[in-house]
């Protein structure tokens, strides 16, 4: 039997396709079997904070976060770990402007500079847009802390002990890693809202959490209304935490 060049290529191509299919099918089916709770790119989690509803002395989100995530408290202000910071500010150039405050946490940017600079790929963005630190892999180099324009990250500069009353759903952290707000990923995966949002809502505050891809969700309605702004939008990081009333 003699084959011309054209037939040889056809047969070769068909064989290559067949091989690719037979290897791909079991892999794909294995993935779909175990993926009931897999982070889904169809959900793009976002948060809206209406700072008009932030009373000056309220620390509900801050306290709930510390409790939920076992965030350690170090006495030295320079070393203390913050997942949410309470920032007070005054409008510039407006005489008699009142002092206001707002919670600032990790913004889970669409283009996270922290993940970009991480030399060991410890910081990464999940498919649903949550930016996380894999603390098993973090080497504590702190490039991400320099890269983050929002000062969202803290370095664990001391040993942290297990203590009674901690939340067993969230592991502690080792001395020498960098950590930050995880958008309560353990709660989000269970279908709950982050602890700060829950605590804020209980106080009648202005935090909302939801899926940007869902046009009916509260956050996407507020974002579409044009009232919501992002901090330092000029940087192009596209934060997923929006503020109303700045």
């Amino acid at each position: 039997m003699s084959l011309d060049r054209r037939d040889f290529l056809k047969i070769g191509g068909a064989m290559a396709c067949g091989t690719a299919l037979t290897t791909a099918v079991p892999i794909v089916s294995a993935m779909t079997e175990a993926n009931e709770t897999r982070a889904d790119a169809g959900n793009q989690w976002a948060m809206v904070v209406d700072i008009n509803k932030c009373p000056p002395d309220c620390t509900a989100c801050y306290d709930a976060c510390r409790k939920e995530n076992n965030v350690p408290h170090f006495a030295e202000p320079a070393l203390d770990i913050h997942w949410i910071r309470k920032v007070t500010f005054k409008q510039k150039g407006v005489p008699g402007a009142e002092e206001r405050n707002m919670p600032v946490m990790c913004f889970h940017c669409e283009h996270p500079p922290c993940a970009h600079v991480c030399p060991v790929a410890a910081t990464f963005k999940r498919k649903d847009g949550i930016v996380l630190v894999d603390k098993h892999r973090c080497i504590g180099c702190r490039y991400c802390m320099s890269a983050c324009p929002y000062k969202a990250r803290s370095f664990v500069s001391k040993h942290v002990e297990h203590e009674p009353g901690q939340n067993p759903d969230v592991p502690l952290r080792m001395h020498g890693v960098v950590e930050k707000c995880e958008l309560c990923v353990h709660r989000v995966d269970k279908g709950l809202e982050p602890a700060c949002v829950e605590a804020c809502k209980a106080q009648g505050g202005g935090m909302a959490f939801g899926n940007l891809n869902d046009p009916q969700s509260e956050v996407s309605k507020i974002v579409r209304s044009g009232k919501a702004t992002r901090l330092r939008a000029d940087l192009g990081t596209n934060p997923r935490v929006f503020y109303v009333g700045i």
Partner: protein
Amino acid sequence: MLAVAVFLAVFSLPFVYNTFNVGIGGAGSVAPKLVHKKGECVRDADWMRRNHMQLLVHTREDAVREGVRVTDHGIKGCRTCHPNRAEFCDQCHGYVGVKPECWDCHYYPSKPEKTA
């Protein structure tokens, strides 16, 4: 002569230590005894003894990176049959002299989790 005696003493120290002390198979060592409920593990016992850490790391990568939170192959799954960490993880790790860092941060779950 003294130098030879000192050399022999130092050289044989590990053997002496192992014979009279708690090293693997030493006179003072107690072989670990597995405490568990009756039933089958997620893999067979021999495989688990050698490779459980790979299963845990695989589960960890899936959970952290992909959000797959199936619990029966992670430490929460271990808890369903091995309720006591000291009799399970610590006993054997102490016997073979390895010090994994899992418990520096993680909690050995106090109640059995529902497996997915």
